[in-house]
């Protein structure tokens, strides 16, 4: 099973989007809208990014003005306060700060562009998360954000004025009364603000990773960009305020314990003295300075709001339109463009447009089906569930092929049994998988050194005998092997007229199996010991234990694409009932129905796995989008709706479509609204 999580997350994600854009653009090309070629896709995105950066920089002076007004708030002299803050807006250092911060915003936006992804990366264990954090890409991200945070904090300190403005101040202590040499002392307030800026920047970067803020979620409804921005703005401000509050608390704690290190370092490198009259800030009395806490909090809010605005604008601009989404929308709203899809090519009369679109969508969906089957197989043999009919799903995937393969496998077994050439190995293999599968993931058990050579040999036999095995199918047919054999041996036991036959073979098994199985059990025991040893170490288990929820999320992480494909395809098929003049859709209808129904079965089965929660988690209204966690529920719902859309449109006519008997039964249930 390939999960998009894990080590090379960043690059993989960016790659994922590239891939999608390319696919999408080919869809558009096929519709005959060539001006949206693959080359222009990047260009379109470039313009959107530029617009989003421009807007976030334009909003910066506004935020700065508000920040200056609030930081110099004076409730007792309101008139003076307002006039002072008006005057402050035009001073040269504020303008310089705005320019500097524009640069910061630009860099932050560049990072947003570099890191975004449409497929979220979900770490399946804590170790994977740790791996992501210390990945060089992420380290660069964090360091740059910390520096940017420090710059923002410096600007904030300068604009706040008062005791925060400078790093070095003339000492107030009495011992420097000799007049000639005015000693410069370290302004610890300034240092505190700078450090908190760096801390906030680093924290932002971490949360960016953990909350998958680089993931671009697509909203459930389309809205104009301004309306989306306006809708999210109050939430953004509220969240920034709250988050900044927590950050201030954490900074205070951190500074209380470790504050002396940077202070000593700065004062020695810059040759500054410590003002003995003031309280040092890493004491309780020093930290309980309301003005300091207030300004740190404000600085945090300012930093988070400006950065979040840049992030939000990028998100809004980038998720405006994409090719597959466009397919869904065209299939829903535009009869003229639907007509293009159903049209025939001019010379030759081939439905190229429809073939390309349907093939693209069907490939996407059957890819998902196969991925799900693999995952279910893995889960079923993971010791959690031992489902009696693991192969059933596979059988329905390509029912005819699978049936042939199985029969072949069955016959292979029979001939083996009859010839008795391989009896010992087969007996063993029927016993071993139970142990092997209970200890290790079956996907790897074939390649693992702990599985017996006999098992591998048998797998090889099966592979040789059944040329139909694709790369996907082989694992679960292989796994079916032992079970089939056991049943066939039972048949032999009971049905065979020569009762002595099995006895002899069993006896021979007893003799021959001693040597390999001794080595095997020894290895098995060792493995068990290592496992139990490791599992007792809590720390190791803490890092290695996999979250079942995260695993499932990872499987469905790119489901948004499948949802659009499903909706687009089903709407086109439904529209074809009245609009398709040449009957181009009819030819692919069996394939489409087959794919949809198979996927439906697999998804249904997936939700019945015991460790998959059947309900989406409660989501409170938050700024961070957590929709990637619930994509599987959306997929299930839209799959069902897609099938119903087809069945309600076509009604009884579907009985004429060539599908397998099992699917026909299923369709009938859909027609009767009993699914």
């Amino acid at each position, binding site marked *: 099973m390939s999960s998009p999580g894990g080590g090379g997350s960043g690059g993989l994600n960016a790659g994922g989007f590239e891939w999608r854009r390319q696919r999408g653009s080919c869809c558009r090309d096929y519709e005959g809208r060539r001006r949206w070629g693959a080359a222009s896709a990047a260009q379109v995105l470039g313009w959107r990014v530029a617009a989003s950066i421009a807007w976030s920089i334009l909003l910066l002076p506004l935020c700065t003005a508000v920040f200056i007004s609030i930081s110099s708030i004076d409730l007792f002299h309101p008139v003076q306060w307002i006039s002072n803050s008006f005057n402050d807006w035009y001073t040269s250092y504020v303008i310089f700060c705005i320019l500097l911060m524009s640069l910061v915003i630009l860099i932050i936006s560049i990072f947003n562009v570099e890191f975004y992804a449409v497929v979220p990366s979900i770490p399946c264990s804590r170790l994977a998360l740790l791996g992501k954090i210390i990945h060089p890409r992420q380290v660069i991200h964090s360091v740059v954000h910390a520096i940017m945070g420090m710059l923002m904090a410096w600007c904030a300190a300068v604009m706040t004025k008062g005791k925060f403005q400078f790093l070095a101040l003339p000492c107030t202590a009495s011992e420097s009364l000799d007049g000639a040499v005015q000693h410069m002392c370290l302004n610890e307030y300034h240092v505190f603000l700078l450090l908190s800026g760096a801390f906030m920047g680093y924290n932002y970067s971490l949360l960016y990773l953990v909350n998958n803020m680089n993931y671009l979620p697509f*909203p*459930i*409804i*389309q*809205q*104009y960009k301004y*309306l989306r921005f306006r*809708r999210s703005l109050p939430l953004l401000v509220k969240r920034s305020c709250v988050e900044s509050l927590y950050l201030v608390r954490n900074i205070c704690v951190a500074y209380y314990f470790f504050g002396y290190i940077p202070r000593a370092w700065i004062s020695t490198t810059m040759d500054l003295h410590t003002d003995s009259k003031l309280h040092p800030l890493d004491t309780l009395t020093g930290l309980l300075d309301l003005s300091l806490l207030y300004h740190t909090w404000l600085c945090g809010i300012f930093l988070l709001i400006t950065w979040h605005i840049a992030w939000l604008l990028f998100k809004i601009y980038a998720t405006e339109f994409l090719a597959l989404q466009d397919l869904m*929308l*065209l299939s*829903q*709203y*535009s*009869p*003229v*463009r639907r007509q293009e899809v159903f049209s025939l090519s001019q010379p030759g009369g081939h439905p190229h447009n429809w073939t390309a679109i349907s093939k693209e969508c069907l490939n996407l969906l059957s890819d998902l089906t196969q991925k799900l089957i693999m995952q279910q197989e893995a889960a079923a043999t993971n010791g959690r569930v031992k489902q009696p009919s693991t192969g059933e799903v596979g059988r329905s995937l390509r029912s005819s092929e699978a049936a042939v393969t199985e029969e072949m496998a069955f016959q292979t077994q029979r001939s083996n049994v009859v010839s008795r050439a391989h009896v010992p190995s087969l007996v063993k293999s029927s016993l071993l998988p139970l142990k092997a599968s209970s200890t290790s993931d079956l996907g790897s058990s074939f390649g693992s050194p702990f599985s017996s050579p006999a098992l591998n040999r048998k797998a090889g036999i099966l592979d040789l005998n059944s040329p139909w095995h694709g790369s996907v199918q082989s694992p679960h047919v292989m796994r079916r092997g032992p079970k089939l054999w056991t049943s066939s041996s039972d048949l032999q036991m009971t049905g065979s007229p020569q009762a002595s036959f099995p006895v002899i073979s069993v006896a021979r098994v007893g003799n021959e199996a001693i040597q390999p199985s001794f080595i095997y059990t020894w290895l098995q025991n060792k493995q068990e010991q290592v496992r139990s040893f490791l599992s007792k170490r809590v720390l190791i288990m803490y890092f290695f234990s996999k979250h079942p929820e995260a695993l499932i999320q990872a499987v469905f992480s790119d489901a948004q694409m499948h949802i659009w494909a499903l*909706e687009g395809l089903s*709407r086109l098929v439904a529209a074809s009932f009245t609009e398709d003049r040449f009957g181009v859709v009819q030819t692919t209808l069996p394939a489409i129905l087959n794919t949809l129904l198979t996927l439906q079965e697999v998804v249904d089965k997936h939700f019945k796995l015991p460790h998959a929660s059947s*309900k*989406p988690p*409660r*989501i409170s*209204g938050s700024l961070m989008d957590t*929709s990637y966690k*619930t*994509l599987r*529920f*959306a997929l*299930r*719902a*839209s799959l*069902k*709706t897609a099938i*119903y*859309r087809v069945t*309600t449109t076509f009604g009884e006519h579907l009985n004429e479509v060539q599908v397998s008997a099992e699917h026909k039964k299923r369709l009938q249930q859909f027609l*009767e*609204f*009993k*699914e």
Partner: protein
Amino acid sequence: MCSLALFPPPPAPGDLTLYEFNNALVSGHVYETLPLAFQDQLADLPVLTIPKETLKAHSRLEHSTKPAFIHHQETLWKRCLNAWRDVGMCGVLNEIANAEEADLQWMKTGSRWTLALCHWVSSLHGSLFPHLSLCSEDMIAEFSQAVDWAGCSIRAFAWHPHSSKFAVALLDDSIRVYNTNSATVPILKHRLQRNVASMAWKPLCASILAVACQSCVLVWHLDPTSLSTRPSSGCAQVLAFTGHSPVTSLAWAPSGEMLLSASPVDTAMLVWDVSTENCVPLQWFGGGGVTYLAWSPDGSKVLATTPSAVFRVWEAQMWTCERWPTIKGHCQTGCWSPDGSRLLFTVLGESVIYSLSFSEYSGEMQGQVGGSKTASIVADLSETTFETPYGEERIGGEVHSMVWDPRGERLAALIRGNPETPESRTIVAVFRTRNSPVFELLPCGFLQGEPGAQPQLIAFHPCFKKGALLTVCWSTGRISHIPFFFVSAQFPCFRPSHSPVVALSSSSASVREQPLFSEL
């Protein structure tokens, strides 16, 4: 313009309206049967009576375990903490204000003042929007589509959009689901399912029912093959959003992807992605809330009415809206033609039906609603006196709810009589309609139930083959189905010449375009 004076007089007292056949409403006694050809159409539709007396009252009103325990005085600090957890800041203030401890005098006065200030501010808000001062039950009764929501045994009714299955919400907060094909009647009960104002089945789905409750929206996932009569509350998804209660109206997108919910206290209507429980608030200040939602059958537009004299029509692709101020009261109800090109609506305080036409919808006009400049009056329903052999009948008044059949050929309007005059009664008036090439509204007749029964709720069957089927819930708790047998106007249509309606049709065919109000 169509008026009630053109209607045939109501049936004789004691008679029931049974069906429409050959363009005339047939009334008679219950035992009279349908014409033979149509009998099998209605054979399996359940006709039921759910009288108020059979419904059990609430066993306990308080849905907490508090009354089960002996009262025990805790310290003020602990009580405040509990109040904070249960009710929030307001609870803490109340707790401090009512505290018996003597030593906290200044805190008590302080919290009393704060509470008074809160009340004053909220009353100021309430004076702008009077409906906000109502308690939530009264508010639901005010804005519900049922005539007597508080007193009648049936509170809401919903047909499944594709199959012959309907759900009935009852006074005791339970919901029963009747299916023509099976004898099992699932009864849905849930801790949060209180004061159901509206229900809606998910389109393109077998059995998902959304229920608008007092505190949230419940989405029941019923298994259509299950034989259980009491689905567990685990089958229900709870969609709650702070500040969005009580919910009075629900509307599914005809494509089944989204659910809209509206509350008279929330200025935003919520767009739910039910499968993931995500929601997007569509904020639009002004009007003070949203009371009733109607999604056009083609999925392109949504009507959202507010408690004040304004309603909005949203366009469902980019979600922009057009605002329509009305002259008198708030928009009470509305319904869409099947192609989404025409909206009929009524306004509280006026006994007329307005029509608003919209331009043809296509994908190219993004973000435009495309409504015409003015709405026109298409029917006058002011009080009219009918001279019948059995005495005088006075019929007419405001329209409380209105439904249009899925083919756009019959329109039923539930007319609430004048409350001042006791002899005027609530009645259902049915119109014949045609949508193309020109819009026509012709009288068909009045529906009458059992003696003493007032119509409560009306709904059309979404897929009745032989014409239209109107389900009427009566105040006695009876649910009856009245079929209208006709051949759809898309096909050559036979019209008997003896019908009095035909003579009138020429005069009423031309709709008087009367400018009433305009946005510009």
